[in-house]
């Protein structure tokens, strides 16, 4: 591969299927940051998010030979797996907590970075808490919408639901977040 930076995802996957680890590493470099951001905000934990994203890339690595080029964007597939791994993980954690096998986790890991310390205060912190309280699929839809990279049709492709279903999820999520925002603004006055 002459210029890995300019290579398409499909060509990188094809190279990876022939054992080219450098090509797969390029895919990881290209897509892991966004996937980690969504997973971190979904789960509230950077370390858990990294485990989830690593699992998604592991599945991608194992599936490179079966990739169908041009059928869907790799990013769509990756986010789909990441979101569902997040949902699985949260469901299992809820069951374990119900069975008292582990203590309830913190909402977020403290003091990870300067950015996180900034996020820990003020309006953004409050919105983060509101997002964490949303039902899982509303949370997934609103985080994907928040990144601004996908249309509702793109979010539907990630979640594997219809565009109408995405609109319904977004309506409920945004109304809920807006209600909380208005309540906080009312309290501040």
């Amino acid at each position, binding site marked *: 591969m002459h210029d890995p930076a300019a290579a398409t995802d499909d060509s990188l996957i094809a190279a990876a299927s022939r054992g080219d*680890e450098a090509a*797969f*590493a390029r895919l*990881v*470099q290209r897509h*892991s*940051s966004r996937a*980690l*951001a*969504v997973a*971190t*905000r979904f789960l509230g934990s950077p*370390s858990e998010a*990294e485990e989830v*994203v*690593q699992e998604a890339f*592991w*599945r991608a690595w194992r*599936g490179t030979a*079966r*990739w*169908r080029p041009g059928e*869907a964007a790799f990013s*769509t*597939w990756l986010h*789909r*797996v990441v979101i*569902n791994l997040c*949902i*699985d993980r949260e*469901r299992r954690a*809820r*069951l374990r907590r*119900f*069975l008292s096998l582990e203590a309830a986790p913190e909402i977020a*890991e403290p003091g990870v970075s300067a950015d*996180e310390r900034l*996020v820990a205060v003020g*309006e*953004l912190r409050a*919105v*983060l808490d509101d*997002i964490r309280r949303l039902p*899982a*699929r509303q949370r997934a839809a609103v*985080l994907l*919408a*928040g*990144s*601004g990279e996908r249309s*509702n049709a793109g979010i539907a492709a990630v979640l*594997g*639901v219809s565009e109408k*279903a995405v609109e319904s999820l*977004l*309506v409920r999520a*945004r*109304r809920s977040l*807006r209600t909380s*925002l208005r309540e906080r603004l009312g309290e501040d006055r």
Partner: protein
Amino acid sequence: MINLQRFEEALDRRGPDLERWPLAERAAAATLLVTSTAARVAHEEAARMQDLLAAVVDTAPQRPGAAERIMAGIAARRSAPPPDPLLILARPQAAMALTAAAAVMFALGAFGGGDLAAQLTQGPSFDGSYSAMIDSDTLPAIFEGN
């Protein structure tokens, strides 16, 4: 013409970026924004929420070297032997979890809590199309046979 209520519904459905709205709705919304103060307030509020959501994703904390660790993890898993399922079940934590789960499910079933038991094992009560996504092993349909 679009009224305020429908405009607010459309904001929730499509977000505040009117460029992403269908052409007819976009034109109606633009007209309403010129004539209605309440519509402008609603649009500003939606834009503010979108900015917050973008900031939530953009400021997600990431530990340096994540991509390298992901690749190292993949390399480690490639060289690791597959786990023995009997050894996993023999772990004390797994045995305790299985025992506790069996006891709870038995109790829930015995006292008429079958629905709750089903919810706990199946996860959130998503609709059919989404619940099919819950088991990640069945999800990556874009890969053949996965």
